[in-house]
């Protein structure tokens, strides 16, 4: 099949989902009210609560939720064939992610902009809230460990990308200085910054950087992981205006450029998909796609992390309740588009089925490298750039997504450690530098504890997906109970909730067996913790809904 047809089907389905299904959800389920005063107005403080134009809000909601995950997940999952991955991304975005992200925004804005954590405590009770906090901590830990391994792999496999990836930090530092110290308008620094970033791609192409085979007994991947954590530690301590803010910004611009490049190149080149629709000849050791597909692709289909962004920042800035449909639902659609692009790159960017099978020789062997290699062929054919340059561009795109998520993740984790210091009264943990070291040590233990040289950290990808889906399940549970209290139909939220919980719990059992078989005791421990959390979440959800149903029955009887 031609990839262009697949893109057209996906775009048509997303458009239909937005125009018809999200309208139905907005009018009949969440019952958006154009006269409702949002927290951005009722609690306006100029800091957290600020009414924001819906296009700008969509821009930073979308760039906050989009990262490397919608690339890595689909590029791993096409091992089962492009059909299951495509169907899950498209239907998952329309019926699961859109409803989840939109719902998180609606639930939070209807409750004074409370975060999903606080809403969990209010709606489901304090025990569910504790589970929620634990799941978030585990998720942050895995994000940092996984993404360090992803970037290190890219730096080793594509040495031409080393200069532009690290050069992006220089570009961000200069933009930060121009904006903060010299009060320069943003238009020209943005344009020049993006041009310099892409110029660095050509420099990197001319000067590839390869680390020594062994340094102090460490392989190149191990060395890069350590350098990345040292960098992330420093970045998380620096004032945000110095690096984090301009880096996020450049990354946001790059997201739009990257999407345009990938979709434009596919339309022009019209490559054929060489991978099978259903791969009946999967490599030995590949788990069954039910249930693993639904946790391997979390971001790009449905992701609990989106609920954190929707209720953490976006809900406090939404100007009108009717804007929530565009910001929340269409934000999920943007992420779905990125995941579709990743599927196309990882299945249509190869010359033959044999080439594709060579890459997908074992489970988790594809991933981001397949995205870069396949995508480079498509971009090269579509835009007339060299394959090497195209590969460097896509490597930079994927590495910057992962890098900015890692920066933010480590900073958030440092806050969590500092909070633990406050709660327990351990003074040393309150110190920012010590808290950063503790957070770094946890991430390093996970990255290297999962396999020699840190590269085995990718083993935790499905576990990361499961944890993310568990978080989505909690958010959907909160929304379901809220809808029950309002006497609204709950099936549109309850079906995704039950589906995610069932798939996550089955996947956790399967992963547990696999980790025990491999003797990965760190992962066994983590898996057991997440499994216990999943079972408690399922129990809490069931009990909360039963309580609501009884309350409704009692009222009806009276």
């Amino acid at each position, binding site marked *: 099949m031609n990839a262009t047809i697949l893109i057209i089907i996906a775009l048509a389905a997303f458009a239909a989902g937005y125009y018809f299904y999200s309208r139905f959800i907005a009018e009949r389920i969440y019952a958006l009210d154009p006269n409702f005063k949002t927290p951005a107005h009722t609690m306006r403080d*100029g*800091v*957290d609560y*600020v009414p*924001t*134009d819906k*296009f*700008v*809000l969509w*821009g*930073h909601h979308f760039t*906050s939720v989009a990262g490397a995950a919608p690339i890595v997940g689909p590029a791993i999952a096409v091992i089962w064939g492009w059909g299951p991955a495509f169907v899950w991304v498209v239907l998952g975005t329309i019926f699961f992610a859109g409803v989840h992200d939109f719902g998180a925004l609606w639930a939070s804005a209807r409750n004074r902009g409370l975060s999903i954590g606080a809403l969990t405590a209010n709606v489901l009770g304090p025990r569910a809230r504790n589970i929620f906090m634990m799941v978030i901590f585990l998720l942050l830990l895995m994000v940092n460990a996984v993404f360090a391994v992803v970037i290190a792999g890219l730096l080793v496999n594509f040495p031409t990308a080393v200069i532009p990836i690290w050069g992006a930090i220089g570009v961000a530092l200069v933009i930060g200085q121009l*904006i903060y110290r010299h009060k320069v*308008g*943003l*238009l020209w620094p*943005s344009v020049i910054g993006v041009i310099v970033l892409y110029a660095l791609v050509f420099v990197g192409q001319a000067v590839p950087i390869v680390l020594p085979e062994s340094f102090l007994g460490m392989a190149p991947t191990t060395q890069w992981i350590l350098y990345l954590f040292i960098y992330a530690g420093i970045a998380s301590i620096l*004032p*945000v*205006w110095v690096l*984090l*803010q*301009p880096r*996020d*910004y450049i990354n*946001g611009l790059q997201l739009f450029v990257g999407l345009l490049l990938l979709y434009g190149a596919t339309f022009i080149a019209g490559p054929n998909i060489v991978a099978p629709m259903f791969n009946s000849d999967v490599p030995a050791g590949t788990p069954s796609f039910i249930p693993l597909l639904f946790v391997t692709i979390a971001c790009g289909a449905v992701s609990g992390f989106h609920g954190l962004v929707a209720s953490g*920042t976006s809900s406090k*800035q939404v100007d009108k309740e009717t804007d929530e449909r565009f910001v929340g639902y269409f934000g999920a659609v943007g992420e779905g588009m990125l995941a579709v692009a990743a599927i196309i790159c990882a299945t249509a960017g190869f010359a033959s089925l044999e080439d594709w099978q060579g890459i997908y020789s074992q489970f988790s062997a594809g991933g981001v490298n397949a995205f870069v290699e396949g995508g480079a062929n498509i971009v090269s054919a579509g835009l007339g750039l060299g394959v090497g340059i195209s590969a460097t561009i896509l490597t930079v795109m994927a590495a910057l997504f992962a890098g900015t998520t890692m920066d933010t993740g480590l900073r958030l984790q440092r806050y969590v450690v500092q909070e633990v210091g406050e709660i327990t009264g351990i003074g040393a943990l309150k110190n920012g530098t010590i808290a950063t070291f503790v957070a770094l040590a946890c991430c390093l233990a996970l990255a290297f504890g999962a396999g020699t040289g840190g590269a085995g950290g990718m083993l935790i990808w499905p576990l990361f997906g499961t944890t993310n889906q568990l978080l989505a399940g909690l958010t959907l549970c909160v929304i379901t109970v809220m809808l029950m209290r309002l006497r609204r139909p709950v099936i549109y939220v309850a079906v995704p909730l039950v589906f995610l919980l069932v798939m996550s719990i089955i996947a956790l059992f399967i992963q547990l067996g696999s980790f025990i078989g491999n003797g990965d005791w760190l992962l066994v421990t983590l898996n057991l913790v997440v499994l216990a959390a999943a079972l408690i979440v399922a129990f809490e959800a069931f009990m909360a809904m039963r309580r609501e149903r009884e309350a409704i029955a009692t009222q009806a009887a009276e």
Partner: protein
Amino acid sequence: MAQKPPLAGRTAALFAAVSDRLGEFYAAPYRRAFAKAKQEEEDLFMLLIFSESLGVPNPATFYTLELLPTLYEDFHDWHRRMGIERSPLDGFRCC
């Protein structure tokens, strides 16, 4: 009929609008971090101004003394933020 503004004016207005939107896109996710940093700076300044009253010798008191009346208004919020339930100043009972 109202006349259209010249092309140069419209282009400048378009650039300014795009720049404004980009500025909002740049600043919005970090408003809280900036507000916190500003608050911390102000808290340190309050400590400096009130240090003598709190029993901490301050060689700059002569220069900061006249700021005291201006900052009394914010003193209550400050001591609460510092984790001091009641006003620590003998001569100033805000709560």
